[in-house]
């Protein structure tokens, strides 16, 4: 487990700095240094007056397996929702007024959130899960268009361990 700080809740009281035995909470970027945080410690979590720090696991259990019936139905929804997003892309490209542009952009954002949510419940809840790894590996194993950020995928696989 490592400590993470929700910057939105942090009120900069700095009690976490005072209690941390290793100085892990003292960083410039507002985050807690995962390399210095001790697995068994939770001093800053309890000391923070704003409830801004929690300990999150480094390893997660696998997502509940998805059954074929649900997966297939979710898949059909995903295809349809993404086809709608492509329509929004086309409307965005053609937009002439500010309202047309904003409406297309709002629809695109909204459709993407819905599509992501379908994917999340189709086995892609966690990047640490098998489906996410298989997704990244399949990108490396198949031919990709020019400009494909291969190093990004390789780094992700390395970071996921």
């Amino acid at each position, binding site marked *: 487990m490592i400590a993470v700080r929700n910057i939105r809740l942090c009120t900069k009281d700095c009690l976490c700095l005072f209690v941390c035995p290793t100085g892990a909470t003292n960083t410039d970027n507002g985050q807690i240094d995962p390399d210095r945080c001790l697995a068994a410690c939770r001093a800053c979590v309890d000391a923070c007056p704003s409830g801004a720090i929690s300990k999150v696991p480094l390893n997660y259990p696998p997502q509940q397996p998805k059954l074929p019936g649900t997966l297939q139905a*979710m898949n059909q929804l995903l295809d349809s929702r993404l086809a*709608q997003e492509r329509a929004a892309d086309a409307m965005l490209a053609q937009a002439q007024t500010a309202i047309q542009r904003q*409406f297309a952009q709002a629809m695109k954002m909204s459709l993407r959130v819905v599509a992501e949510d379908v994917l999340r419940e189709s086995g892609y809840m966690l990047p640490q899960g098998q489906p996410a790894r298989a997704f990244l590996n399949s990108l490396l194993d198949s031919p990709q268009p020019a400009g494909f950020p291969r190093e990004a995928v390789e780094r992700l696989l390395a970071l996921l361990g």
Partner: protein
Amino acid sequence: MSVYICTVCGYDYDEAAGDPRHGIPPGTRWEDVPADWVCPVCGADKSMFENQGGKAETPAPAPMAAPAGQAAPQQGADAKRLSATASNLARAVQKQHRAGMADLFTQLADFFDGQSSPAGDWQTAADLLKEDLAGRYPAAFAAARADGDRGALRALNWGEKVGKIQANLLKRYNKEGDAAFEGSAFFVCEACGFIFVGEQAPEICPVCKVPRFKFARVGRGASA
């Protein structure tokens, strides 16, 4: 006097109480509420309301089987799917406070979004959405219920409600054009995708109940 419930956000229209703040006096029967009245909480139109304890005047169509086969694999569809898979994983690592990984997944998502080709127009989107609401959502609900998949049911619940709002907005836009949204801004809930049209995002999302700060405002000068 009866009560009609908004199927998107759960707001009650009580005929006895009316909606005086929006010009509907107490005692106004449902059929006398003007067709352009919308839910004061989430903006859904009258067709999204159901009579409490029964269906509204328009019975929902019987769920048709989801269209068989793949939805015409056009060029660029695969790239969209890869993009959405990557952007979803970007959100997942963000929740785990791993900013570095989030940037990498976002880079991947943007790359594939650029590879997908735009296709269709608002009519295409409205037609597909209509099929979703009539067929694909009911079919997916049935499958998820049969599998006891609570996560999928949660996502379907949000997605269907958001779909109703999207369908409403497309309908309004089709009818009135830009005038439909004159003087308003668009706010999109980053958790469920709900779109609010107005001056200020609601205090909590009518669909998924996250607080206001999770709404993204689509800016005036926004560009592609």
